[in-house]
């Protein structure tokens, strides 16, 4: 069976992430500069981590969101303080927007005793409900039903908070994704799923993972309204998420966004991505979300180069401090391994 044209086609004028102009927004200048800061913090923190990895300071694998920063940053920026996010390994930007400090990420990746999990878990695998963060789950798809449950709890209590989680193109082939999406639809819970279509799942291109062109087609089958969004336009991601979140908050049930983007590195730092045709990297490098946003800020007269440089200097200063903190941090005491299997507090 061949796939026919996407049933969503006409609904989504902005399928092609090639448009140079970014989406219209009512966000004031200060907010746009804040987005810029998060985007750069995301990228520069990952650059620091890459260096630390090469120096053997990162314990285990290192995962990059290069080229996808606009998705995490733009979507998390559209959330309210009581909303809850379930990020995946490439959603560093979402954590930063939720108030996570670079040193928390650095100490996690470096397995130090000062990390949010005290050394028990790795990389972005930590959560903090006080900041609306659920810890990632490696088993792909698993966060979808879990975040549907977070949304169910809000609906149950009559609260208006929304749950948001992410899934990769590859992850949408799991049973958990299917069950979670269908369940969220039937229970009409306020869940927003951001599906990052970045072309590859490890070495496997999308066309060998599914027979459909758009992940949004999956949402149609669940009766979940979906939109396709340019994932390399931080304003488009922000605006689409804001819209989806407000519909979910208003009781409209789950929403899905398919964000078109590209994974600009290998699956992880050890993977040279030799299986990706170099032209693809070339084509997507021209759509780099940060460079595009900088041009937007300049074209719209929102910031001078000097103002952007001041932001960068501030980001670098912050990172210097936090890298030093992480490097100076001790290893965890071995006996900590025994602690915390059970909750010992009040029921």
């Amino acid at each position, binding site marked *: 069976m061949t796939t026919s044209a996407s049933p969503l086609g006409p609904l989504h004028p902005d399928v092609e992430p090639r448009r140079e102009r970014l989406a219209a927004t009512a966000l004031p200048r200060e907010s746009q500069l804040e987005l810029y800061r998060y985007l750069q913090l995301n990228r520069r923190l990952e650059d620091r981590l890459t260096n630390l990895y090469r120096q053997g300071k990162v314990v285990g694998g290192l995962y990059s969101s290069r080229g996808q920063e606009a998705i995490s940053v733009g979507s998390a920026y559209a959330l309210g303080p009581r909303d809850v996010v379930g990020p995946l390994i490439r959603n560093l930007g979402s954590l930063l927007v939720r108030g996570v400090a670079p040193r928390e990420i650095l100490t996690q990746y470096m397995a130090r005793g000062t990390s949010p999990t005290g050394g*028990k878990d790795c990389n972005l695998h930590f959560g903090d409900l006080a900041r609306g963060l659920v810890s990632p789950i490696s088993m792909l798809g698993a966060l979808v039903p879990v975040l549907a449950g977070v949304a169910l709890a809000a609906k149950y209590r009559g609260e208006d908070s929304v749950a948001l989680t992410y899934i990769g193109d590859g992850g949408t082939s799991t049973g958990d994704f299917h069950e979670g999406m269908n369940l969220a639809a039937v229970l009409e819970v306020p869940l927003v799923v951001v599906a990052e279509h970045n072309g590859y799942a490890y070495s496997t291109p999308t066309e060998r993972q599914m027979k459909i062109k758009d992940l949004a087609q999956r949402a149609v089958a669940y009766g979940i309204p979906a939109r396709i969004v340019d994932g390399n336009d931080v304003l488009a991601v922000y605006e689409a998420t804001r819209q989806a979140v407000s519909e979910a908050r208003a009781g409209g049930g789950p929403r899905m966004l398919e964000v078109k983007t590209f994974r600009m590195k290998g699956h992880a730092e050890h993977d040279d991505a030799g299986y990706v045709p170099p032209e693809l990297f070339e084509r997507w490098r021209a759509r780099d979300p940060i460079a595009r946003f900088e041009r937007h800020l300049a074209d719209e007269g929102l910031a001078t180069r000097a103002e952007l440089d001041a932001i960068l200097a501030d980001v670098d200063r912050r990172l210097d401090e936090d890298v030093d903190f992480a490097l100076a941090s001790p290893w965890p005491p071995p006996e900590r391994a025994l602690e915390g299997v059970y909750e010992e507090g009040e029921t």
Partner: protein
Amino acid sequence: MSATATGAATEVTFLEAIGRALADEMRADDRVFLIGEDVGRYGGAFRVTAGLLDEFGPRRVIDTPISESGFTGAAIGAAMMGLRPVVEYQFIDFIANAFDMVVNFAGTNRYRWGQKVPLVLRGPSGGRVSGSAFHSANPEAYFHRAPGLKIVYPATAEDAYGLLRAAIRDPNPVLFFEHKYLYRRVKGTLPEGLETLPLGRARLARAGRDLTVITWSAMVHVALEAAATLAAEGIEIEIVDLRTLKPMDEAAILASVEKTNRALVLSEEPVTGSVAGDVAARIAERAFWSLDAPVARVGCLDTPVPYSPPLEDFYLPNAAKLAARVRELVSG
């Protein structure tokens, strides 16, 4: 990749031994095919299947979407129809996503309606590589109590080769766990003409007189390390490498314990609910009157696998912990 173990003896890593077993069995039998994530062009996350797509083509080396339950179910179906699927999980932790297929269907099929399911389910397992809770599993105990499954967990390159070929030829579903710490660290020589080694047969990894350590997989090497230390103190431990956990070579365990009169089960699992517990129970039931000391278990903490090296070192058994326990049992 043209050398085979059926030619002259060759030195290989544990990982290469597995790749060769797959290739040799695929050459020998057109019914054998591989299925899993990134096993084809990429050659698998750990490169176990590197080169196999080139030799055997996409009909026999099948890349899948991320759908563990789906491709395990499909492998069961193909196996029932007479094919010999070998399923790879990118990390063995993700076999959890196919638990229902493995335990409820593959394991019970033969008993329920007489239809055999010749199937191998394999993948990288084990800790000591800072993989944390989701990438360090030793899942043998989850499957040990499930009827109808066989479980192989080798320690040496030669065993990995011969037992994998035997697993593929076996008419039952066989779980084949590959400790990833051993992949490139353990090397061995595949003897000329080696094809299969029998499932269900333990191997005497070291002869000794004072105490028997029953173990498998990466822990065999830990036991050997401890044995060297203990030998310098005049304590000679015997090491039984089970190789196959199910069916378990009870005769080999009992024969050794009846000789040394002391038994310790060493395994990389949380002690509670472990396969080690089953080994200990068999010894207590059948060799009680030969014992000069209680049967001991040395394993992991009853916690998820922690990430940071000092925590994971504390969590895992090692030669020093083993030697300390052996000294207590021998002097007690």
